[in-house]
Structures are given as structure tokens and as C-alpha cells.
């Protein structure tokens, strides 16, 4: 992956003050499709979750929340910890879920 892409992801992950709607989490321990499956299953149980995207390459779990709803950092950390993974960073970003998918797929090529 290009350094500029990594920098953009890091910037998006840790930028402060972005409006809610998309939550991006850096997660350790993501090594297979089963990990992604378990995390998606856990997060989709939250009524505020509209969409979930997991990127193993970027150690990223992104959540699209429903309009006007949010999930607290404590609840996100608990959900991921209870699923068996370690959360290393949480950020609300302005990127839409579609933009995240497109950017990461492009970066992977």
C-alpha cells in the first residue's frame, strides 16, 4: 500500500471533531474471514448499526450508523473486546462507508 494512502487512512482514523455517521476503529488480531464474520455479527446486533465493513489489510473495522444515532466508545470497545479482539483507536470520520470501501479497494490494487 502507498504511504500516501496509509497517511490518509491514519489521518481519517485519528482526526478529531468529525461528525458522527461513520466510525472507524483500528483493531488488532484481524487475520481471517472468520474474524470479520464474528465482528460483523456482533456489531450488527446494535440497533444503531446500519453497515459494517472490515479490512484485514488495514486492521480497520468501519461502522455506518443510522441517522442521528451513535455508539459510544465504551460500547464499541466492549463489543470488540467481547468478540475477542483489541481496539487500538476509535474515530468518527466524514468518510461515507462507500468512500471507505472504494478507497481501500483502490489502495489494494
Amino acid at each position, binding site marked *: 500500500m502507498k504511504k500516501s494512502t496509509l497517511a490518509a487512512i491514519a489521518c481519517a482514523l485519528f482526526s478529531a471533531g468529525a461528525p458522527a455517521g461513520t466510525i472507524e476503529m483500528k483493531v*488488532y*488480531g*484481524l*487475520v*481471517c*474471514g*472468520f*474474524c*470479520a*464474520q*464474528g*465482528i460483523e*455479527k*456482533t456489531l450488527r446486533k446494535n440497533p444503531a448499526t446500519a453497515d459494517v465493513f*472490515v*479490512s*484485514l*489489510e488495514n*486492521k480497520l473495522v468501519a461502522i455506518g450508523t443510522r441517522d442521528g444515532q451513535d455508539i459510544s466508545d465504551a460500547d464499541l470497545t466492549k463489543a470488540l473486546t*467481547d*468478540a*475477542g*479482539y*483489541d481496539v487500538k483507536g476509535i474515530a468518527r470520520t466524514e468518510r461515507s462507508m462507500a468512500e471507505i470501501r472504494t478507497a481501500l479497494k483502490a489502495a*489494494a490494487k
Partner: protein
Amino acid sequence: MKLVSGLAACVLLCAPAAFSKPIAFAHGTTVMAEYGAGTMNEAQIFYAPTFKYSLGLGYLELDSDQNGRKREISYARVNYLVKRWNMESAQANVFTWGSIGNARVSEQRSDVFSWNAGAQIDYETRRVYGSLKTDLNRSSAFSHRVDTLQLGVAPYKHEADSLATWFVVQGRRYTGEIHDGTEWALLLRLFKRGAWVEAGVTQDGKLQAMAMVNF
């Protein structure tokens, strides 16, 4: 025993390690069936209330290629995740389990109470993996331990929603006159999302295969 100790040291010290886990993920159900070269067949179903443990039922068939004796063991099992290490691009685990059940013993033509204890250590990235598993089955009529080493390499890094491909070398040893020596097999493993299949051949040209579904 020296071979097993050596393999264990290799897994622990040389890095690569993982394989199918007795606990896939919290609130997940795992269904697995394995055909092991005619000497060992097993089927299991587990449900994991949390990522730390799972409960389930299984059936194990051991067929000796030395004396023709056969054990058919039906069991109830608890699996427990002793320790997990989540690293930036890797994961390692230590699992243990125990079960009790009923065993049909061919030479006695009778059923006996049986119990089982086992453990697994694994380590995996998206390119290399390895696991070492030991599984002891005992009853008043038999004692068999099955030790399995798997070392795998992936030709590419898979993503969460893409097909994962692995080439795996498996070494398996049995005690209690099931099979003499180490049974080596080369396997092709494919998985995507919750579905997993693998197949290969042993050094004797026998089929070794496994299928698993997580949901």
C-alpha cells in the same frame, strides 16, 4: 515422543502456528467433519456463548490399520480459550478442552465410559500459520493420543470477503496401535467467510479431508 517434542518446540520457537479453532467467534456455531485417511474420522458441532468457551457434541472413530481394532466415541465437550494474543497483523491462541462420552470397543463388543482431554496452540498471520494439537482419549479399554501438527503458507493475503487459499503440511502421530509412525499429508485449504474446505493426500496416497461451517 522426541518427534512430537521437537515439533512442539519448532511451533513455539520458530513462529508459524494455527488451524481450525474449537471456538470460531462469540455467539457462533461451528459444524465440522473430518475424514482422516481411514484411521480417524470425526464430526463436531459447537456453540460459543462467548469467545472464551464453546459447548457441543462430537463423534470420533478410530480405526487401527495395525490390528483392525475400532473405537467409536460419542462425546459432549467443553472448549476453553486459555489465552489469546492479538497482535497488529497476527493472532496466537492457547485452547484446551475436555469431554466425556461413550465408546464402543470393537474387540469387546461392548460400550464403556470414555473421557478426553486436549490442547492446541496456534499462531497465524495472513501468510503463515501453524498449530500443534494433542488429543487424549481414554477408557478402561484403551488409551489413544493423537498429536497433530499443521504448518501452512498462503500464496497471497486474503481479505475479509475474498477466498483464502492455503497450502498445508500436516503430520499426525497416534499412540495405542492405531497407526505406526507419523502420517504425513499435503493439503489444499480454501475458505471464504464462514465456509472452509480442505483436502489432500497422505504419503500412502490416502484421502485426508475436512469441511467446516461457521454461522
